[in-house]
């Protein structure tokens, strides 16, 4: 194997050889090599994070029919660096009465819960941090740590608005974990494994978005709710609870929360691409080499991130009780129905030719979507008639 077919292994072997040549023991050399690999991965992620700040500001500007930052550097590319320098030199105000350890730990845990996700993302068949065979459950566990960091931030700020925003955000995140876990079971059922590499490999024939578009849609909705981005960002709305759980954070600590949120959105765009849009498969282009496959995965992650930004800058904010009712009364039953139908069809049609299974799954998803829309139309019709029934006498006095 030369460098271009297996870059990570070749680099690790070379490093181990050099270190043991200097006289280090095997165990220490392997630990040091793995540490260096982790540091390189985290550094690449944080540099991508800086670019994401620039992408976010340009894209939101274009959605709002303006130009975005274009003064600092060519096309405003130096803008995020200017932002970071500004955040670093700002004064770190720590309010009186905060719980110092918890207050300082919360932004660190928030970014920690995003960075550990990159250990299981398969950038190529040969480039993956660690191939856990319970990778999808690891994704949910990292989300749980993120939830913990938000409530730590909200409570330790010694501020009622922060606590209220944190409560709402955590209630929404814990509620939307359920449809996320249920829709994560659908690629598991279709691929037969929970490992990310296995799911990417199994999409060589047909991407899962064609087999189960409803699952992709529900995963996207619950991922946006997990991220705490609009339209589910009630806890961060300036007009509702000032800035939610990060009111009392200034300077680089707020920078960590902000950068962590953008990187989290990019990571979930990546997961959407890997789980439903084929991962590193792109009509055979990935066979050119692992670096091409990694570029394909990052490109799909950027596309997913663009869809998440599109949703954010188009839709309005949803009220907290509407958000929770939407989850418990609509998303959970719908995702359960999709899971049951997908599992049934997968078992019944396991030996049938591929195009029959694909077509029947797609048609079953379309049928479920149509039935849901019909039920919703019927409900909204009864509500509209009820509302119009009340307003009927007033309307009749107007001459036609």
């Amino acid at each position, binding site marked *: 194997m030369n460098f271009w077919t297996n870059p990570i292994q070749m680099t690790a072997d070379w490093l181990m050889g050099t270190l043991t040549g200097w006289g280090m023991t095997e165990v220490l050399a392997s630990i040091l090599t793995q540490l260096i690999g982790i540091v390189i991965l985290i550094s690449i992620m944080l540099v991508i994070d800086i670019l994401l700040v620039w992408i976010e500001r340009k894209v939101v500007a274009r959605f709002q029919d303006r130009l975005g930052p274009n003064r600092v550097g060519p096309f405003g590319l130096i803008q995020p660096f200017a932002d970071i320098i500004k955040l670093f030199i700002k004064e770190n105000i720590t309010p009186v009465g905060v719980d110092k350890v918890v207050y300082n730990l919360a932004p660190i845990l928030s970014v920690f819960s995003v960075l550990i996700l990159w250990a299981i993302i398969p950038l190529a068949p040969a480039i993956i941090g660690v191939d856990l065979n319970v990778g999808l*459950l690891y994704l949910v*566990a990292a989300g749980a740590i993120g939830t913990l960091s938000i409530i730590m931030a909200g409570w330790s700020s010694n501020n009622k608005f922060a606590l209220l925003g944190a409560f709402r955000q955590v209630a929404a995140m814990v509620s939307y*974990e359920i449809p996320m876990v249920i829709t994560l079971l659908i690629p598991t059922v279709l691929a037969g494994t929970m490992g990310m590499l296995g799911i990417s490999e199994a999409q060589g024939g047909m991407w899962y978005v064609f087999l189960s578009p409803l699952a992709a849609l529900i995963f996207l909705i619950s991922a946006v709710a997990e991220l705490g981005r609009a339209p589910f960002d009630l806890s961060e709305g300036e007009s509702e609870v000032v800035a939610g759980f990060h009111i009392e954070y200034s300077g680089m600590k707020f920078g960590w929360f902000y950068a962590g949120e953008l990187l989290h959105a990019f990571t979930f765009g990546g997961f959407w691409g890997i789980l439903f849009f084929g991962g590193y498969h792109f009509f055979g282009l990935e066979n050119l080499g692992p670096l091409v496959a990694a570029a394909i995965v990052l490109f799909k992650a950027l596309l997913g991130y663009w869809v998440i930004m599109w949703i954010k800058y188009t839709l309005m904010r949803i009220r907290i009780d509407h958000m929770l009712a939407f989850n418990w009364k609509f998303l959970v039953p719908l995702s359960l129905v999709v899971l049951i139908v997908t599992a049934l069809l997968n078992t019944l049609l396991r030996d049938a030719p591929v195009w029959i299974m694909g077509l029947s799954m797609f048609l079953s998803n379309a049928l479920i979507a149509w039935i849901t829309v019909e039920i919703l139309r019927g409900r909204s019709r009864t509500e509209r008639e009820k509302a119009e029934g009340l307003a009927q006498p007033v309307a009749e006095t107007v001459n036609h």
Partner: protein
Amino acid sequence: MTILFLITAVVILASAVMVVSSRNLVHAALWLVSALFGVAVLYAMLNAGFMAVVQVVIYIGAIAILFIFAVMLTRREMRDTGPGLNPNWWVSAVVSLLTFGGLAYLLSNWSGFSQTSADLPSGFDAVGALGDALISPDAYVLPFEVASILLVAALVGAVYIAFNPQNGDNHE
């Protein structure tokens, strides 16, 4: 491997001691999170990777957050008042030391006390075998179903007990 076990054991026991002796209850709940995380690392060292991840999801992601919410909703004021321990805490200390001594003594009299672990058979798929054991009719499908009924009963019971009729019906 031994060093990792010793570090994890020290973290678990130190966090547990801080849980039971912290006066600030939110700190106690956060120390519980640290102890639970140490237990998850322990499961990973015992080749039970699925257990480790499920521990993080269920205990840290749901139960610890439930504890933090409950602590915040049951305080008379924002600060913590009063001693954390009973007046008779020394009796509890004696009882727990006796329990530990008794358990250690009983276990050390067992013949298999100091055995080392055999290697797992190669290609052993723990997650697949666990799935088979949970749903196969001559394995453990009945306890699995009874556990899910228990969870539904607990869900209904908890919602009913904690339901506040004052502000439970102000939407539609």
